[in-house]
């Protein structure tokens, strides 16, 4: 009965609050509480465990594990590696993000065909996590609490940032949208979803970068940074970014450098 009275009272209070702003604030507060409740028991832990097992498993034509994969801190070093990616790699003469580098190691160490290693990187809603997602979850967990430290020393790292910045502001497609259409002003929302100002607000950029990959409750699956960009471009009405393509690495470099110094806190859990 007490619950019903509370609901009735809350309903009456809501009806009395004649401004939409108040009702909206209450909704936003409820969403914030919901997010807080989700923090306990993140299903991403299971994905991390599977990723670690996959990392150590002898796979591919060469029947080799990924344990000698060089993520930028030397062969076999996973600890703190995610937090310094994307970076320049002299063996490929390219700037690579974590997911591109995993593809690279699957090709060079395990002997997979590149097309196979980069195929279907994202799971469907509620489906089993892909190997790429599991390996990424494991990698980022090994950087939890590590400050983001993305280098801008190499000219190719600088060029990646600059192209990423240009791409961020590039308006195109039938809706004329750029990344900045939604992520260029502080305090903006789509419906009730807060939008981080990734380009100009250090705090927002840090929170966004350090909380991907994330377990998406609404989709029942773990999502990576490459997926985050992919789904933004879908809503931007652009064509599809090729998984691990140069422009995606450029954009992640731009986002990452803006978050330098903030501590990684991922896999996180989101709505």
């Amino acid at each position, binding site marked *: 009965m007490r619950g019903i009275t509370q609901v009735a009272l809350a309903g009456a209070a809501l009806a009395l609050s004649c401004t939409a702003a108040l009702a909206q604030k209450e909704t936003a507060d409820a969403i914030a509480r919901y997010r807080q409740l989700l923090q306990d028991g993140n299903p991403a832990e299971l994905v991390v465990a599977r990723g670690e097992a996959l990392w150590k498993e002898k796979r591919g034509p060469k029947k080799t594990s990924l344990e000698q994969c060089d993520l930028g801190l030397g062969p076999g070093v996973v600890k703190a590696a995610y937090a310094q990616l994307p970076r320049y790699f002299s063996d490929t003469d390219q700037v690579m993000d974590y997911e591109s580098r995993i593809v690279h190691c699957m090709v060079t160490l395990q002997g997979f065909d590149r097309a196979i290693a980069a195929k279907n990187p994202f799971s469907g809603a509620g489906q089993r996590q892909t190997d790429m997602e599991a390996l990424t979850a494991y990698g980022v967990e090994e950087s939890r609490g590590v400050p983001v430290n993305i280098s801008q020393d190499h*000219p190719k790292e*600088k060029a990646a940032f600059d192209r990423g910045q*240009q791409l961020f502001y590039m308006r*195109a497609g039938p809706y*004329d949208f750029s990344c900045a259409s939604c992520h260029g002003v502080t305090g903006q929302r789509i419906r009730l979803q807060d939008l981080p100002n990734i380009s100009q607000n250090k705090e927002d950029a840090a929170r966004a970068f350090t909380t991907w990959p994330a377990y998406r409750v609404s989709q029942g699956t773990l999502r990576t940074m490459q997926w985050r960009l992919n789904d933004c471009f879908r809503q931007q009405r*652009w064509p*599809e*970014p090729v998984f691990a393509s140069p422009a995606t690495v450029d954009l992640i470099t731009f986002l990452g450098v803006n978050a330098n110094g903030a501590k990684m806190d991922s896999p996180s859990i989101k709505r």
Partner: protein
Amino acid sequence: MKRNFTSPLALSFIVASLIGCAVYTAPTREETLQVVKGSFQDRGIAKLDRLDQSELQVACSEVALTGKELPKDVRARLEKQALATVKLPADGVYLGDFKQGERIAQTGVGLQWSDNDKTVAGGNCYACHQLSPQEIAFGNIGPSLRGYGKQRGNSQAVLSYTWGKLWNSHAYNACSQMPRYGDANILTTAQIKDLMALLLDPNSPVNK
């Protein structure tokens, strides 16, 4: 004095290498565009030609990137060009059904690769604007449109302006963030009439 033996040749080498470091030049727009175009692919209805930017898209991207304002003459020209695209309703009827308008304002699908060419697109107005009072899940990228018609009335000037804004928002603000619902064939003329009614019909919840 004993370390003072730097030859002019060595000095010029040092200067040259310092300059070499300092002259890192950022990739040009064209160079970036080439990398971007090589990094995307067709998917469903979302084809690569969507990356071919219009003059307005190029100009407004530059404004956003640099923070500089559009030169006055460029702004005037782009707005004039946008205004010229606006097709006013041939039958002279501007207002459709505000109930349909509310549905169109609520719907956000259309023109994504997850849609197809049979998908009836929505306007997704609530993503950015406040409209009817009963919908509290509204965004704030655009201004509140609550009471839009009540404040402005239904004069021909208001009808033409509002129609033009929905058809091609750049007609009145060169670098507006709002999609060109008519010009880009996102919504049909009938759908735009319904949105007009949502905004301007005295019986629409927007004006209650």
